[in-house]
């Protein structure tokens, strides 16, 4: 694979760091191309899978004569069929993702998504990209070429924070567009109803998608800054609320930790991967569950 062109969210130093990594999510996926991922479909390949009893009509070349010599019975060897992965990335592009300085959550997430897309394509796997806020703003179907990668990078660079967060709507709209199951990576600040989110994820889980949630927060969202009497303006709804931050900091911290814990618990119950990251930590730590 040739080196990608220089893009804002795909830095050469990050590419060099990715040299030793291989995109390898744990779930079994379906693939058309012969990639490096296991396919649940049995076929001829170099990797042994299992024995089964011979029935009339089977290819005799597959009979394992050593087993026959031991048991006087006819057994066939079956082999794994390698396919290529599809990774579907959902990037939250709502207004709330614009929070944070000097680097907003959207920029942070964009770096991660760009690097992830590169990694997937380098692995000869396919990656799709969905940009969403209160609905699906952009959908880039899965591809694995360098041209496709370039298109995704450009889309990321042109992406700007939008309106309210409606992840559930975006998932529902994207569901019929995702023909093949694979990995579903959702990068968001999850400023939405967790029950609605996981309700929208249920069809994906049922189809066998391997889902990873990457919860991106600014440190100031975990611990309110001490600003005394301040008016907070909601970036999505424009709602204003004035309060003494020192009077609610403790309660806010507890509430936010509760929200995170709630998401984590729901994810654990559904066997969904969950990872929290703050924008003050390098996004490379987000790759831990995805690479080898």
């Amino acid at each position, binding site marked *: 694979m040739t080196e990608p062109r220089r893009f804002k969210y795909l830095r050469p130093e990050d590419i060099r760091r990715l040299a030793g990594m291989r995109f390898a999510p744990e779930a079994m996926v379906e693939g058309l191309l012969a990639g490096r991922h296991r396919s649940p479909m049995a076929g001829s390949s170099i990797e042994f899978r299992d024995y089964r009893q011979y029935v009339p009509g089977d290819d005799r070349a597959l009979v394992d004569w050593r087993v026959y010599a031991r048991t006087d019975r006819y057994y066939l060897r079956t082999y794994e069929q390698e396919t290529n992965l599809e990774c579907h990335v959902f990037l939250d592009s709502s207004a*709330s*993702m614009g*929070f944070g300085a000097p680097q907003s*959550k959207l920029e942070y997430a964009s770096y991660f998504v760009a690097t992830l897309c590169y990694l997937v394509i380098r692995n000869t796997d396919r990656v799709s990209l969905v940009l969403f806020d209160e609905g699906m703003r952009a959908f880039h179907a899965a591809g694995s070429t360098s041209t496709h990668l370039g298109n995704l990078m450009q889309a990321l660079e042109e992406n700007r924070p939008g309106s309210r967060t409606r992840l559930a709507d975006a998932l529902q709209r994207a569901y019929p567009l995702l023909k093949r199951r694979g990995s579903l990576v959702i990068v968001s*600040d999850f*400023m939405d109803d967790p029950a609605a989110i996981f309700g929208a994820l249920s069809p994906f889980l049922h189809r066998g998608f391997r889902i990873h949630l990457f919860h991106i927060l*600014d440190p100031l*969202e975990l611990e309110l800054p001490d*600003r*005394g*009497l*301040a*008016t*907070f*303006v*909601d*970036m*999505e*709804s424009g*709602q*204003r*609320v*004035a*309060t003494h931050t020192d*009077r*609610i900091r403790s*309660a*806010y911290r507890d*509430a*936010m930790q509760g*929200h995170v814990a709630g998401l984590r618990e729901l994810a654990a119950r559904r066997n969904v991967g969950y990872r929290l990251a703050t924008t003050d930590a390098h996004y490379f730590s987000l790759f831990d569950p995805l690479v080898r």
Partner: protein
Amino acid sequence: MNLLFSNAVLWPLVALVALPVLVHLLARARPAAYRFSSVELILRILRQTARIKKPQDWILLVLRTLFAAAVVLVFLQPVYFPSRRLASPLERKNVVVVIDATASMGCLEGSQTRFAAACAEGADILSGLTARDTANIVWLKAEPESVFPDMGVNLGFLRDALRQARVTQEAGDVAMALRLAVQMLSPAEGRKELYLVSDFQKTAWSRVDEAVPPSVEVMRVPVGREEAPNGALTDILLEPRVPLAGEEFAIHCRVQNFGPQPTRRSVFCSVGESRQSQDVLIPAWGETTASFRHRASTPGPVTIRAVLNEDRFTGDDTRWAVASVRGTLHAVAAPTADPTGKLWLRAVEALGCFTVTQPGSNEWRTAEADAVLLPGLPEIPGSVQGALREGQVVLWWPGPDFTGGVTRVGGFGVEGAHWETAGGRSGVRALKVTAAEDEVFRLFRDGDHGNPAGGSFQARLVFPPDAVRGGEVLMAYDDGVPALVRFRGQGLVYLWNLPLGTGQSDFAGRMEFIPLLAEILMTGRAADSGRAAGEETVPGRRPVWVLDRDAMESDIAWHGPDDAALPFLLERGVQGNRAVARDPVALGLYQWQYGGRTVRYAAANFPVVESDLRTLPPEDVRTGVNAVSLSDGARVRAMREGVPLWPYLLMAALALVMVEGVTLLWVERT
């Protein structure tokens, strides 16, 4: 409610009370705005805390507003007048303070007497007066008197009078004191206020029903709040009332308990030089008698002093009496030629303990006689009937001409009788005693003095026993005709049907005759108990001696308990002369002397009505519908001058600051 503001010019400061509200409303800061990813969590938190926050904010707002109001009011210096009944310091007032100086006010409560407390209340009341006001003090005692003859302006003199005043041992004339006070207030111009400062003793004030004009404001200021138990000597009685020299007589000291608990007391009785004591147990609210016996060897006055061991109210723990011991008893006998009467006189004179006088036809002064002998009179004279008294004995022999009769006074007698002599149908008659247990026959029970029913009778009055009205037959003839009948009423009247003349009976010659006669005459003494002779008075009175002779002032002297000579007045009038003590007496024994010799005593004893120290609730005192009860004289001043509220407001402001601080801590914690 009446409120005045001394610094009313500072009223605009009231606007400052709105300051906390304005700050609360307007000082909502416009804080800096920060864009935040989502305020949903913040809103949720604020909704949860609002339930606590809002009431806290309101509490703080209220506390701060109240604090501002208290501070502003401190500067305005409000003065509260509890009542508009009293004139303000600016109005002209006429004030009479009636101060109870009766004996009960001498009761000690705490460290001071009720009277001292009353004088202090009076001083408090006067302290609220100004130079334009007039005032006076009326002392409530036996003869109420005022400090000034009329309303006066010299308040300093009145205060001095209060400081120097002393409680009396007198009972008070409440009605007169009220009338005196009203009389002084009537012509006054301006507001009229009458203050009654008293313990409102129940025995004295429950009878008061004196109407006070509606133009006079009556204030009752009670002193004496304790139901002080008290024991008192309330009377001294002698039995017999007039003892004889050599005769033992009883001294009964009556002790009363004015308290809710039984009490044991010691009674000491001093008679002349002798002294006796006795312990008595007196039931709650009851009385008992301590009895002593004494025998005076010579005739003359014998002073008796009874003392109760001390309690907190000592005025009524001593009592005086004088026993007039006589050498002989006194008998008055009607002049008579009747042989029975003559024999009576000889027998009475032979007794040696009687002095017999025979008055003229119209000089029946029998009131002081111990015995009245009426021989041969068909009826008891009306003057004798009217003068009968307890302890007096009348011995009446109706005589042969008696045909019966019932007295006007007492309604006793015999209905129908006739004279009978021996030789007639009855013959010689013997006697029998029909009431052997009677006291008349006590001497004869041992048999040493013969048989009183001995003797034989040839003549007698005959009447059946049922003809006797109101009497008891002590002796009778063998045929049942009454021989000796006693009528009990005021005194004892004995109907003597035992003729003694020659040919009538041999009774006069018998040894039993004189003892029987003596016993009859002496029976009256057993019932003759009562207060000793001499005048008994109470403190505050001025004893009077009605002279039975024309005397020079220099012949008369009036002496007090310490034997000091006291002033008196000699009044000569159409109805006779009398010596009157010039000054009211205090407790003790006084004596009138004539020619250097004591002729009459006056015992000034504590008025019993003052011994019951229970008080009446002031509201129950009937002094007109316009009266109000106050707790004390300080309240009078408060009503007149008002109560400055600024100290209380300052304390309230400080308290509010402290409460606000505590509330802020609570707000911080929540």
